[in-house]
């Protein structure tokens, strides 16, 4: 059997190549002594170039490396968001003591590795690339969580994330085996043809396969009942990593969730949509209830992430283009709101040395407006109050759900956001009332960098309100992802 090399479309692969190059550069710089200082610049540069290359191919949809990777609307939209999250994470990590201890280039190398894995995951169109990309983005994260050697919890969070993560991946792999066995192919389109042609719709093998894959993916985007790692890991990991994880894992996870379920397993749609809806419901309930009387802000954001993931999976349950559009819009909104909030958290931690408890935010509204407004808008957005982009995100999701006949899930989303009032408003309440003690000055990084991070926070806050009032540009950006999955109804 002669070996024909798969035709590779280098132009489509260029963003990945840029990232690999960046990764390689940071690894080299790690050992290059004095040159290590330019590692952050190099990392950010490589991500910016990758982003540019992606934007260059906006609107196209083509196979990369013989069908195993697919560069289309979905992957471009999600990759851009991931890169944005990556860049912001690098900014956050500059002042982070953990990063300095672990050696800045190594920290950044791991980060870039994870970003590369995520970008590949958005493009994965074959079981194999799906698994590789998934592992490529998880394993560096396990390590990243454990980098803050100063604190014992960081190691603990790393270990927890690794063990539970590997358990998830193993389940996913086992599921993939069954899917592969039943459909006879590894490419998503071929799986879909395999499944629809043969009459094994009720066949136990494919169903167990689908079940296990659902569990594996649900774990990745921290849906209940596979959510238990999220609060602990969010609290334990360094703030920069938590910020990156909160946003990026969901982006990558949902990208492959959408692509795999809505192309490969599309014929079984009315099998898995009910179980997904059930998982969504549980996540909304568990996520909101868990967050109610939390003291640590990161842990609360962990739980709220579970609840928000519950809302987002609604976009997939509906199995329609409109659903995916709503999902991607909501993820974009989620990114803006969360990174805005984390920016404030990072500045408070690095500049004022305050811990991550909600109480530490008391009264910054009176003294420190530049920080108070971004976190207030972030909270109001996560609740889904007008005029923030959160409101419109929820509106699109509910519209998609009601249109797809899942009205009860729409109502549950609303009930969830009602319950979320309790803890989000508690943060807003503490920010705006009461007096704050004078901020102690931790040996933080230069005020120029802190100014930059505060700027990031303010930019995201302004975006949240701006897109809340004029959503069209963000909607067109998100709608890209919807069209990519062409085969869907509606």
């Amino acid at each position, binding site marked *: 059997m002669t070996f024909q090399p798969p035709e590779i479309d280098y132009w489509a692969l260029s963003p990945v190549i840029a990232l690999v190059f960046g990764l390689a550069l940071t690894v080299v710089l790690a050992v290059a002594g004095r040159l290590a200082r330019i590692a952050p610049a190099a990392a950010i540069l490589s991500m910016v170039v990758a982003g540019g290359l992606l934007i260059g191919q906006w609107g196209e949809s083509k196979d990369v490396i013989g069908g195993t990777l697919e560069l289309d609307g979905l992957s471009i939209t999600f990759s851009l968001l991931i890169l944005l999250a990556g860049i912001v994470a690098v900014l956050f990590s500059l002042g982070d003591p953990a990063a300095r201890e672990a050696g800045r280039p190594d920290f950044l190398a791991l980060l870039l590795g994870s970003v590369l894995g995520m970008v590949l995951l958005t493009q994965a169109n074959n079981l194999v690339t799906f698994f590789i990309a998934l592992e490529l983005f998880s394993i560096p994260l396990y390590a990243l969580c454990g980098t803050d050697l100063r604190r014992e919890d960081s190691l603990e969070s790393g*270990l*927890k994330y690794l*063990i*539970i993560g590997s*358990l*998830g991946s193993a*389940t996913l792999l086992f599921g993939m085996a069954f899917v592969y066995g039943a459909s006879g192919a590894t490419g998503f389109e071929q799986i879909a043809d395999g499944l629809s042609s043969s009459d094994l*719709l*009720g066949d*136990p093998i494919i*169903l*167990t396969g*689908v*079940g*296990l894959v*659902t*569990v594996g993916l649900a*774990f990745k985007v921290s849906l209940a*009942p*596979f959510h*238990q*790692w999220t*609060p*602990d890991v969010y609290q334990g990991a360094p703030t920069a990593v938590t910020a990156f994880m909160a946003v990026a894992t969901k982006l990558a996870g949902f990208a492959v969730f959408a692509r795999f379920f809505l192309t490969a397993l599309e014929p*079984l749609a009315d*099998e*898995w949509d*009910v*179980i997904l809806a*059930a*998982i969504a419901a549980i996540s909304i309930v*568990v996520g909101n*209830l*868990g*967050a*109610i*009387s*939390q003291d640590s802000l990161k842990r609360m954001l962990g739980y709220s992430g579970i609840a928000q993931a519950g809302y987002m999976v609604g976009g997939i349950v509906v199995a329609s283009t409109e659903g995916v559009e709503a999902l991607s819009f909501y993820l974009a909104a989620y990114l803006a709101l969360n990174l805005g909030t984390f920016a404030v958290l990072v500045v408070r931690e690095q500049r004022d040395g305050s811990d991550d408890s909600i109480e530490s935010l008391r009264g910054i509204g009176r003294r420190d407006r530049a920080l108070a407004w971004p976190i207030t808008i972030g909270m109001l957005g996560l609740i889904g109050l007008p005029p923030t982009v959160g409101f419109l995100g929820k509106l699109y999701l509910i519209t998609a759900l009601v249109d797809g006949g899942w009205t009860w899930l729409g109502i549950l989303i609303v009930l969830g956001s009602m*319950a979320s009032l*309790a803890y989000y408003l508690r943060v807003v309440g503490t920010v705006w009332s009461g007096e704050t003690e004078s901020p102690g000055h931790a040996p933080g990084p230069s005020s120029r960098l802190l100014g930059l991070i505060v700027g990031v926070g303010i930019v995201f806050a302004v975006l949240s309100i701006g897109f809340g009032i004029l959503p069209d540009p963000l909607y067109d950006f998100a709608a890209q992802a919807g069209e990519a999955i062409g085969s869907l109804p509606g």
Partner: protein
Amino acid sequence: MTTASWAWLVLLFPLLGSMVIAFGFRRLPDRTAGIIGSTAIGLAFIAGIGTLLGLLSEPSESRHVASSLWEYAGVGDLRVDLGIFVDPLAVFMVLVVTGVSFLIHVYSTAYMESDQGYSRFFSYLNFFVFSMLLLVLAGNFVLLIIGWAFVGFASYALISFWYRRTTATAAGMKAFVINVVGDIGLVLAAILIFRELGVLDYEAVFDAAPKVFSTDQWTVVAICLLLLVGAFAKSAQLPFHTWLADAMEGPTPVSSLIHAATMVTAGVYLVARTWPLFELAPAAANVAAIVGVVTLLVAGTIALVVTDLKRIIAYSTMSQIGYMFLAVGIGAYSAGMFHLMTHAFFKALLFMAAGSIIAVMANDQNIDRMRGLGKALPFTAAMLVIGSLALSGFPFTSGWFSKDEILDFALYRGGWYTILAIAGYVGAFMTALYAFRIVFRILPGRPCPEAEELIETGHVAHGEAVNPANGQPEDYEVGYPGKEHHIAEQSPGMRFGMLPLGVLALIAGFLQVPGVTEVVTKFLEPTFEGSSLAAIHPPVSKAWLGLLNGGVIAVVGIAFAWVFWVRRPAIPGSLRQKFHPLYELFVHKWYFDELIHAVIVRPVLAFGDFCNRVVEPFVVGGIVTGTTSLVRSAGALVRDLQSGMIRAYASLMVVGAIAVVLFLLLRGG
């Protein structure tokens, strides 16, 4: 000047007077408020005469004029204009109201001389006359209700005029709430009328009613009963009468104007005005008559035993209005209106006289302490006697003609109406008895200390007045007629107010001498033409017979009084011992106050308390605290589940995976 424009002037003057005094009360030099007030009412009286002349110039069958300024409220087919309706009944009432009010205004310029709230008093008084005239001239039911409520508000304002006296404000509150209950009766009646007939103007209603309603159809009876609720509340008939006795807290001119001459007669006017409805609902008319008679008797008994001078006169008012309701109830409309007029004269006179007497007694209204005032207050005593004579229906006084005309009509109607007539005669006897109980107790005999002091020094005694009800010291600063008091003998204003009324009390009767001068009946005839009952005229001989036995009863009553309280004063005491339970019943005003308090006031307050203490925290609060505590405990459960143990997480994950796969297999298989 057409009749209508005269009528609008009648309305305009008092309103103008009230506004001018109200807005100028700081800049007006003192005591000009009284002059402005009196002239305003005087001008209104003259405008009333103008309307009367305008009306008389019309031929008798077209003696009614309706005119409206603009559309007040129009929604769908409900059309209400700001319109008045002028006809003989309305003009008759206008003349009585403005005439008596003018005299009372003059009287109060003197009586309220030293009161701090002088201009505020006249502003309220003018506003009251305006609202009474609005009520009388209103052209449709909505405007009637508005007039009705303004009168109620004005009476509240005047009863609690000395607002620093807690008893006055409490009396004001009671009067106002009962008045609102009356208003609601009228509102519901108006709505029922609109629902059935689709119109609210008098003329339209009265000619549509016979076409739509059959006699004693439940809707028309309901309408009339609701109207009666309003009438009884305003005219202090049973069971809505309890506010009248407390209303004596207000200044005496107020009692004489509102609680004798004008406001309390509004109910009688209402029944007279809506006579077509009542003729369609004889059952309701009978209710009016019966309640009138019962009130008449009850009030009479209470007046016999009460010792507070103004309250005796107040209960006599209640009983006299009972007569008027009897009259309009059985169809003797003109007789009822005539009695209304004569009653206005002699009752206002009695109250004015009482005012002067109380002034002498340094605001002490208890007749037990009044002796021998005849010599001290010759003029007031004379007026008191004239008033009492007219009240008890002494022959040839105005009371004699008017009261007995009603009773003749009742007798003439025959059937069970005769029982009402007999009760009326018993009432007449009691009236004579209590009227002269006052006269014989306070005028003759050795003068009491205050009278003594007045006779020698000619100056009125006055002590530190303490509110008898609750012992609070009076706050002169804001009213309570000031340190000095004024008696008719020493102030011409009061005399000028009382004299005409005295004359009228005596001679007014000749307006309606049966068979000779039926002036009032002929004048009111156009209003009531078409009414079957109004057409009945008892023969003149029967009328004179009725007058005869009425006169005899009056004289016998006075004689009895003379015996009880002059010849052998011991008798009342022994009677009191013998009929002790009966005496207790009367003194406690037949326990109506306690009854209403127990039946209505306490349950309502208890319900309010129940809502506040029980429903609010549990039901309403429960919804809120219930959900929040539920959510909080569920949150705690989720957090406890998060034990931090990796193996726990792993096990949940495995269990979850098994559940998902099983679910898919079962469902998919």
